[in-house]
């Protein structure tokens, strides 16, 4: 919310565009700053693409890693499992809790951007915004479910955090590097960040296939997490 009101002076002005042109193209491509000339592009690049991505990922990874791995390390999972609840139930319910939290935060983001749309002269189409927020949530959920799965598999919070962070960071890095030249473009195929943001959804609308794919993978990770917990010993 820091970024958006600055748009008229940063993104929209001609001098800014000249400045961006003066920067090394590699850098602008890596940071997605080549879009910031337009309102939607600016929003995409700064908020969805960087600061929002960072904050949401951190939150989601934290929740995911704590859900099973952290709980097991703290000894509380053992106590809960001794009660009248199944392991699958625990994983699914905690995954649902993460989904709900991400959904609530995403709705908040949507409303905020919409609210600033006029005052900051962003000119974002509401439909495109909804699509962008959906992909934004999908990306965060992917890191979170990766953390959940790794935590459920290993019983340790740190592996959950590592897995979630890997998905988020590598996704960002592969996108940044992959955009540099056609030779390394194949890296873009490995980047969930690119799948979500490749066509700049705030500007051009969502890639629904990518959204479905991301949510599908997240659902798969949750199921795998449940299976992993079901089959192993807990607390050892």
């Amino acid at each position, binding site marked *: 919310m820091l970024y958006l009101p600055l748009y008229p002076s940063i993104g929209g002005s001609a001098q800014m565009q000249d400045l961006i042109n003066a920067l090394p193209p590699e850098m602008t491509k890596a940071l997605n700053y080549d879009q910031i000339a337009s309102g939607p592009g600016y929003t995409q690049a700064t908020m969805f693409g960087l600061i929002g991505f960072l904050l949401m990922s951190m939150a989601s990874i934290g929740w995911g890693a704590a859900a099973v791995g952290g709980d097991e390390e703290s000894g*509380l999972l*053992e106590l809960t499992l001794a*009660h009248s609840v199944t392991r699958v139930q625990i994983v699914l319910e905690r995954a649902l809790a993460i989904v709900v939290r991400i959904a609530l935060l995403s709705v908040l983001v949507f409303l905020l951007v919409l609210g600033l749309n006029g005052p900051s002269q962003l000119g974002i189409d509401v439909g495109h915004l909804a699509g962008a927020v959906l992909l934004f949530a999908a990306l965060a959920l992917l890191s979170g479910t990766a953390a959940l799965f790794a935590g459920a598999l290993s019983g340790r919070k740190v592996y959950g955090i590592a897995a979630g962070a890997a998905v988020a960071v590598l996704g960002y890095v592969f996108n940044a590097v992959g955009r540099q030249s056609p030779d390394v473009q194949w890296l873009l195929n490995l980047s969930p960040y690119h799948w979500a943001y490749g066509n700049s959804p705030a500007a051009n609308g969502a890639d629904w296939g990518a959204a479905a794919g991301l949510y599908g993978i997240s659902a798969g990770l949750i199921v795998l997490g449940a299976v992993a917990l079901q089959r192993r010993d807990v*607390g050892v």
Partner: protein
Amino acid sequence: MTQAIVVEGLRKKFGHREVLHGLDFAVDRGTVFGVIGPNGAGKTTTMRCLLDIIRPSAGSISVLGEDPRSAGTALRRRIGYLPGELHLENRTTGRRMLEHFAAISGPVDPKHVNELAERLNLDLDRQTRKLSKGNKQKLGLLQAFMHKPELLVLDEPTSGLDPLVQQVFHAMVREAVDGGATVFLSSHVLSEVQQAADAVAILRDGGIVTVSTVEALRTAAVRQVRFTSTETEAHDVGALLARVPGVANMVVRELKADGHTSGTVEATAMLSGHVQPLVQALARLNLTDLVLEEPDLEEAVLTLYTAQTPQPGQSSQPGQSPGLGQPPGLGNGQTQGRHVEGAHRA
């Protein structure tokens, strides 16, 4: 009536390391069964197997008549569990945590919860992470007892509790048993097991050394004897003692006064088994002092901690224990090897 817990041939391997080598024991309903053993003996692993937290590598387990792995949630509703290591670092209050567990495993009578909390002197409205270790343990006890389960599985239940609260705990156990529940608990503290348990299993290195009632353990346990007699020579006293069955580690000496033999003899020995033969023998002496100590279960069990290696699959029924004075397969040589406390030289 089925027994509350039946374990046969329980083995557990973690990777290449086998930590339980074929346990066999059974717990009757309505009794308190204690498991004691040194650290790393396998007590916690065994308990976790009962709750399906850990799955056995081999062997069969029956809890309240059902297999823990396949019985699912309905079985766990009938069990109350207290884990050995309880970390409660949440921001929730104790009350909310108990309500959460009550919602899962209920139904729970809130008056009962409050009554127990008051007896244990626990403030349920403090955040769990702010509780001291003892208070966290009380909270753990509460969540195990609150739904009045048929079976209580308690791993070192009094750890961190002060003596007053320990007595409250023992009262809670008695009340539970009076209500028909079965209690399966583990401990390091032998006096606690002495107080609470009807039958005891001694676990060492993943195998059961012996299963016995507490009474049988005490009867078979070794007592220390000290007496002073007059008008009898030391070697005569020694010979008299040597003829008494169960006497070992004898030390007899003459007490000297002013450099002359005073005719007073002081003797110490360890006695295992029945007291009557010793008393009859001593009656022939002119005793001026006699001390026959209550057998210390702690000392007795410690010999088992360090003594024989448990045999895989070994089991015995409560009441038929070979007794600690004569561990199976070993003769009196075993007890004679023990260092006698208080044995002093002139």
